[in-house]
């Protein structure tokens, strides 16, 4: 792959990650779910567990259907204080291989709850595998590995 092609690909991946984050921030769950392949694996896992090889994730979805169940929980069953998030995604690095595209990026997610000042909800890195479908990129894997270990109260929306 030429230098120009790599550069272009990295910008395309950055665009995809930005629109993924924007879908969550907008609460556009159809758009969020459309970012995943049907057999995608999604995890929000603390760096503490990840680095020590503990498999426990704070959120673990093993398919797009399980992600749909998570979204259903957020929309229908869980009780929580009204809030919204804001994603800042940067430092995108890509590693194209034969069958999939590996992407790593930093994220910072801010959370704003009614009547409270905005705070940092989570800082971490995305570790993703992407494939190209007709509609564009989709994740086959997205691990959100968060540094902060401690969750301020609850984690409601996907990261």
């Amino acid at each position, binding site marked *: 792959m030429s230098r120009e092609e790599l550069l272009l690909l990295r910008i395309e991946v950055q665009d995809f990650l930005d629109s993924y984050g924007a879908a969550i921030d907008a609460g556009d769950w159809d758009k969020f779910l459309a970012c995943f392949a049907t057999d995608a694996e999604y995890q*929000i*896992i*603390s760096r*503490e*567990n990840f680095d*020590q090889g*503990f*498999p*426990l*994730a*704070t*959120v*673990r*979805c*093993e*398919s797009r*259907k*399980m992600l*749909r*169940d*998570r979204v*259903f*929980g957020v929309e*229908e*069953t*869980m*009780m*929580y*204080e009204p809030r919204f998030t804001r994603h800042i995604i940067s430092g995108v690095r890509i590693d194209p291989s034969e069958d999939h595209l590996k992407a790593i990026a930093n994220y910072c997610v801010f959370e704003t709850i009614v009547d409270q000042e905005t705070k940092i909800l989570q800082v971490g890195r995305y570790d993703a595998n992407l494939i190209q479908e007709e509609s564009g990129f989709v994740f086959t894997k997205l691990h959100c590995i968060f540094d902060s*270990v*401690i*969750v*301020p*109260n*609850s*984690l*409601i929306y996907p990261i």
Partner: protein
Amino acid sequence: MPYVNLLEDRETPLQKPTATDHWPEEGISRVPYWIYSDPANYKREQEKVFGGPHWNYVALSCELPNPGDFKRSYVGDKPVVIVKDENGKFYVFENRCAHRGVQFCRERLGNTKRFVCPYHQWSYDLSGDLIGVPFRRGVKGQGGMPENFDRKAHGLRQLSVAERNGVLFASFADKPSTIEAYLGERMLGYFNRVFDGRELQVLGYQRQDIPANWKLMFENIKDPYHASLLHVFLVTFGLFRADQPSAVHMDDYGRHACLISSKGDQKATTATKDMENLKTDLILNDDRLLDPKREFPGTATVVMQTLWPNLIVQQQSNTLAMRHIVPQGPNKFRLDWTFFGYKNDDEEMVRRRLRQANLMGAAGFVSADDSEVMKFSQEGVVPYQRDEGIMEMGGLGTSEEEHMVTESAIRGFYGYYRKVMGLF
């Protein structure tokens, strides 16, 4: 400069509670709101509840498999270190250098031959005894510690330690009762149900900072009334619901309790008409999320055990966890979750536990409801120190019940709390 006794001025207001310190006349069917935020009451809890003759959960012994392994933990809000020595014996001591109080152990888990305080390099062996004081004899004949300085008298402050089937407890009391006597026969039975001697295996941790008083967490797991109403996920999938065979059991003192239930069907009954949140038409898109497999004797599919003063043992279907309550001032606590299984679990069971963990923890389909509502509780009661909450569901007493439409375990808890705290 005129002498001002600042110390005296500052100590006076701390001696007496800042709000009215009496308990309502109605007794344990009421809970006064000042106990959730009063700073003097909080200090007294650290002394009487967490520092008293009780066993506090600190670790699972499988977290320290090798000699020299250590773990940072807490008893109440006091940082402690748990260590396994060369002979396999467990020690728990304060994470506080005997010299100037530095919290010397900064790693969550690790292995060492000795502990060295970074400030003046005082060193301690694995049992917490002071073994080294640099420049103790002075330098070139100058300085040094007094001749009569006794190293043995300046070790790290030790706590009593008890282990029961892989679970480690510590106590600031010199000679607490055995852990078995402390749990009592009834609670020991439920404890043994999960901790039956099989080797345990940690699956991972979760940590939350919840902006609420620690007692709200303990109450929450003694309160089966809310579970059928707040937790749409639980009631919808029949994991815990008022119309299913259920029970509330306690120890003789009312300090420990169990909420017990058996999984039922996802259907409406006459009892579900009050459960506005019940959704009978809800089905999971990926039912692997909930694929419970019976693994414990008896008919119960969920046993949530609260062990005074700082532990919740969670067994909901196949998700097992220790929830360790760490108070951080009157208005905040940390909830340290240790999810575990058994060493001999097959791959399928490990995966099942990891999937079902989606119900629990900071993002849990069920538990997130609780961390949210505890914040609402704290914010609701703080401005109303002189008011009180009412707990009359299922009567006014503290008897065990074979149903879950009761607040008797919360009343039992406050009955014991009042005795320990001397609040009458």
